[in-house]
């Protein structure tokens, strides 16, 4: 009885083993699909502005070829493992030392493919790397562990001091207009990041980096510090609301009261 049971289990296990990789991949795929909730506040796949849009495009140019190559390599490995598995322990295959033509091909082909995605990449670097345009709306961002401060030189009080906002969830910018963020740090290095509007730029003491972004539509955008800055780095978050210019002006006037 016992022996029978044991043989059965072993047989089952052996048959199961061949399916482990397939089961594993299927499981991953299922999990991947079940967890795909795109409606999250900092999703980089859900761009809401020109900059984030173009950056997502660049990502797709490299992501799709990467997925194709991954499939070829992983699938190829699987096929090779099955096809060339040892059948006869005495068998010694022909001792092939290489194939120069083939190897040259898989040196040159990837180089061409990489340069092919590299050229539009450089174009996008220059496209997004230009200085902000003349009519951009200027905001001075002051990062201090572990809060953000937005200063609005366009809105000043009677003494000529710019409007300053410390409310971490109450920052405002115009929608549909380029915004130039002038980034200042008073202590350590931080990084200014509003994922749905665009990638990050570091906020470095002793220098002023300038990042321009544009929110296509009104909305509220979530962001946070992306360079480790100490104890409460995780809590250095912000909410930025983009709204039409008139509403923004009204908001600023009210704030200055």
């Amino acid at each position: 009885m016992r022996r029978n049971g044991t043989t059965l289990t072993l047989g089952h296990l052996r048959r199961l083993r061949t399916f482990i990789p397939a089961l594993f991949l299927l499981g991953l795929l299922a999990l991947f699909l079940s967890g795909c909730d795109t409606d999250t506040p900092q999703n980089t796949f859900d761009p809401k502005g020109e900059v984030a849009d173009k950056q997502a495009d660049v990502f797709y140019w490299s992501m799709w070829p990467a997925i194709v190559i991954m499939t070829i390599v992983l699938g190829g490995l699987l096929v090779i493992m099955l096809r060339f598995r040892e059948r006869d322990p005495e068998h010694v295959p022909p001792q092939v030392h290489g194939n120069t033509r083939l190897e040259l091909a898989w040196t040159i082909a990837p180089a061409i493919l990489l340069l092919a995605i590299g050229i539009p990449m450089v174009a996008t670097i220059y496209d997004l790397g230009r200085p902000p345009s003349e009519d951009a709306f200027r905001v001075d961002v002051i990062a201090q562990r572990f809060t953000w401060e937005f200063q609005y030189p366009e809105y000043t009080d009677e003494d000529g001091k710019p409007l300053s906002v410390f409310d971490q969830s109450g920052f405002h910018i115009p929608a549909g207009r380029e915004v130039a963020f002038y980034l200042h740090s008073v202590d350590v290095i931080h990084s200014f990041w509003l994922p749905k509007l665009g990638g990050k730029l570091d906020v470095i003491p002793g220098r002023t980096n300038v990042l321009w972004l544009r929110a296509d539509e009104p909305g509220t955008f979530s962001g946070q510090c992306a360079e480790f800055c100490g104890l409460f780095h995780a809590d250095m978050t912000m909410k930025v609301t983009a709204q039409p210019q008139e509403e923004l002006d009204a908001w600023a006037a009210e704030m200055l009261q």
Partner: protein
Amino acid sequence: MASIAVPKRSPLSEALKGARRAAENSSSIWSWIATVDHKRIGILYGISAVVFFIVGGVEALLLRLQLAQPDANFLDPDAYNRLFTMHGTTMVFLVVMPLSSAFFNLMVPLMIGARDVAFPRLNAFSYWTFLAGAIFLNASFFTGDILNGDLGAPGGGWFGYAPLSLREFAPGHGMDFWMLGLQMFGIASLAGGFNFIVTILNMRAPGMTLFRMPVFVWMTLVTSFLIIFAMPVIAVALFELTFDRLFDANYFNAEAGGNPLLWQHMFWLFGHPEVYILILPAFGILSEILPTFSRKPLFGYAFVVFSGVAIGFMSWGVWVHHMYTTGLGTVANSAFGISTILIAVPTGVKVFNWMGTLWGGSIRFRAPLMFAVGTVAMFTIGGLSGVTHSMVPSDYQQNSSYYVVAHFHYVLFGGAIMALFGGIYYWFPKFTGKLMNEPLGHLNFWLMLIGFNLTFFPMHISGLLGMPRRVYTYNSDMGWDFWNLMSTVGAFLIALSVLVFLYNFFLSLRRGKESGPDPWDARTLEWSLPSPPPEYNFKEIPTVDSRDHFWNTKYREDETGRVVPVLAGGVVEPEEEHGDDDEHGHGIHMPSPSYMPLIASIGFPIVATGLIYDYALVPVGFALILIGLFGWVMEPATEED
């Protein structure tokens, strides 16, 4: 030896001689402490690395527990920050580098037909200095009020960005321990790097030209060159940080005219070659395992070697890809963007050549092969995700996010660590004479592969969903809960796989099957020796006539081109080795054990402790270093009888 004028024996030199005698007895603990045998030093490196792998792994599990759920309070932010700093530092400097060093030490002399490395005592000095630094760094935990959960360890991240690492923002001594500990690893690595370059260039057996060397030896050579050029860069950066922290210099203080970005440039100018210091030894291991288990020579030896060399060169021209978001401008970002995507070319060549090696082979599904093929697959994913964020504009989104965490774990865990595990399974029999348990090895592999993917694949997603790295917690409305929970579950699966490994290791050590000299029917010289090899390795230094010298003693091609075994081939050599018992290698002079490297190494942590707490200790430490070095120079290399 008698020709050297030895001054009149003092009691001290008599005592030292007595101690060395004690170390000659190969079963005493002193024989390990004073050893200069490359195999023993390799084993010491390996054991230390595995111990620290467990330490770094426990740190990772604590981090994952904190992140398993949003708004968790398992760790306070301070503890979290210190633990991720120590996790990163430990895994890079105390696990992957020393584990690679273990293989350099164990394998290189055997593979090139040498009796030891060029400088055996310098080799011992490397190990002890590494261990001194490792213990010193981890001692920082106890400088805080650890019983109340207040860890004293460094908390500035493993790349220690200034000005966060300066005294103003990192009070306490954690970062002091970090920078001085790293300096010690640098000294240890430099000594090792020079040692292996000299060994490989000068001590190859007759006939073993550079292009007949096993690829693992080639990768050791490239790695050693990277080490000797990269370590001085980080040494300078660390000296500057030391001056900033201890003596109020202002290298990195913007307010006083310093430049915080200077640190980043120097750190990554070291740090990117460092990445290849971590991965190239793994590539070397793969290039040994895959041919053995597919019973074919490595496909395209020259391409694999030259792509490794090319990676070594190119690794110096890509460091700014860690700094795309610092605002260096369009020209710098474009240039480094292009250089970074092009480093994928030589890396891809290796992957394709490994596939070519397997193609047409007769593949034996043994544990080392499973780890090797798993590594190729995981490294491919890591390499491809690397290409996606070498693309500068998309990196603006992914930099410092969990996407990057996913990427470098695919490269350094799926790549380096898995390959190193494969190496352990592969060469375990050579040094113990026992085979590791095969079913447990497969269980180890599958648990690790699944746990690894479950941990790190979701990090791609959480990163693209905007989760920054190094956050001690997150809000539940961000959509990251599910992915983080998965990562935590996966991390515990990895932990389980490591437990299986440890069980297998000790079980096999005690009750493993006898392996014999050449259990895998392998191709390289070390398998021509008995397992474990005698202290002097080769009784007679072999003369090498081809790349597959050892294989050719076992197999030849018949008239039709079929590969057939040579009758009584291969097995002859070990038999000869045992043949004349009366000789037993007594005529071979091996360097005597020495305590001097250890004495010199102990000086370093004393100097470092002195710099932090009391300058009076500094001269004491330096005195010890000098005593060690002088004793080393003065003592006879081989004991007179």
